[in-house]
């Protein structure tokens, strides 16, 4: 039987995020190939008496998860397709989005109506990491589902629906506003650590010259 342990805050890719070891450029060429020195290592040292298979302490044992095609399909089917923030908005559709490689920002829909899910992060129901959903506070004169996000009450039950029809409920814990230029990326875009839902829109002063707002409004919620 596989012995499971809680996923720590730095076990997956945020190990690099927290420690800086993830600084390797993502723009390096693909197809790096296997590291042949290790793959072809012929070394097979003779067993020694101390190396027995008997488990003694399971506190450091690694967790594992199914790697079957069915598990992959089930994981994909957890991608969010709708979100409801009661009291501040009608239900809204969610689209999978990634980092814009040109500008480096989250690639948002050209619409006030749609919500973007940062698809490189966690999906609802995942054991670790933050599910990041972002939407325009306004777009081209239109308001959207997150326009009144800053007014959400603590404890509000936010419901995220996945493609497989499952509903995931989160309770709002905090709402904060911070300058866009001081976005806490390490906390916001977590791929490890306790599961959370993070809702993001814009707020603060509006700059008519750049058509942009000074702040991000960030609402954090936890699974219930």
């Amino acid at each position, binding site marked *: 039987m596989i012995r499971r342990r809680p996923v720590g805050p730095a076990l997956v890719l945020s190990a690099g995020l927290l420690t800086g070891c993830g600084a390797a450029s993502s723009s390096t060429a693909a197809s790096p190939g296997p590291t042949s020195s290790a793959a072809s290592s012929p070394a097979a040292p003779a*067993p020694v008496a101390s190396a027995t298979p008997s*488990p003694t302490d399971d506190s450091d044992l*690694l967790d594992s998860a199914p790697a079957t095609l069915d598990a992959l399909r089930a994981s994909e089917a957890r991608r969010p397709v709708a979100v409801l923030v009661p009291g501040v908005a009608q239900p809204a559709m969610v689209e999978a989005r990634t980092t814009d490689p040109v500008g480096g920002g989250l690639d948002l829909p050209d619409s006030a109506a749609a919500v973007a899910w940062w698809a*490189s992060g966690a999906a609802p129901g995942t054991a670790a990491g933050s599910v990041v959903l972002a939407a*325009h506070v*306004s777009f*081209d004169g239109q308001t959207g589902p997150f326009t009144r996000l800053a007014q959400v009450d603590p404890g509000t039950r936010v419901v995220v629906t996945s493609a497989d029809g499952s509903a995931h409920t989160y309770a709002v814990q905090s709402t904060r506003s911070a300058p866009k230029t001081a976005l806490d990326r390490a906390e916001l875009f977590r791929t490890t650590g306790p599961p959370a839902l993070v809702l993001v829109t*814009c707020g603060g002063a509006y700059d008519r010259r750049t058509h942009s707002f000074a702040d991000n409004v960030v609402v954090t919620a936890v699974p219930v």
Partner: protein
Amino acid sequence: MSRPLPALIGAGLLSVALPLGASVVTATPAAAAPGDTVLTVVHGVRGFVADVRLDDKLVLSGFAPERVTDPLEVPPGEHRVQAWPTGAAPGTAPVLDQVINLVGGEHVTAGIGLDQDGKPTITLFKDDGLLADSGSTALVVRGLADADPVKVVAGDRTISDALGGAQQGVQQIAPGTYPVSVQPANGGPSTVPTADIPVVAGRAVVLYLIGSQQDNTLGWVAQSVLPNASSAPLRIDTGFGEVPTAGDATTTVLVLGLPTALLAAVALRRRHRPLPA
């Protein structure tokens, strides 16, 4: 399944570099160092439920085939990996006994597969760089099977012309679901059923060909690799244009109504102003 062990390499020689029993491996973030390797293990040998030791430290117990571990942070350099069938008697020779060499700062997956003799072996694959840039999506195939090279096609895209053991093919691809088919690279009928593979935006879906061609047990296991942390968005620009206020009746009166009223008042005053004498 037992593997012959060369007697020429003494345990004492290895212990110079890696004192057996030294706890150099950690699964806890507190001890993580910036130069560590982030190691994930994929198990692709059917029928082999394993206890796995890294540098003589038990890291996996009852590790079942077709599973993938959480990442483990390991200092760079040489490490000894040994695996026994779970429940093997103490003192039993390991089925797998191999030294791997890890590069600091890299994200690496160690695949447990079969070599050309049908024996369990470990192949390391580097996970960094699978995605061409921070917004990319990729489909990756890697070989862990005891088989002749195969051609792997997803929809109308060839992912690998000749995927053999310890090799990989990488293609940047649009998100979606693709029928992935396998054919022997030198022709002949496929022994792997075509499978629909979902590829989510912003990550690399990695398929490992496992099993044995001779035993007709070829198949896939899958892993989803996220981009590294530096690929997270730098900002979220969630506003384009001022927030309309039309829905607020009071504001509408103040913003639109008040100036209109003032203009009207001025016009009326002008109209009723007495003509100069």
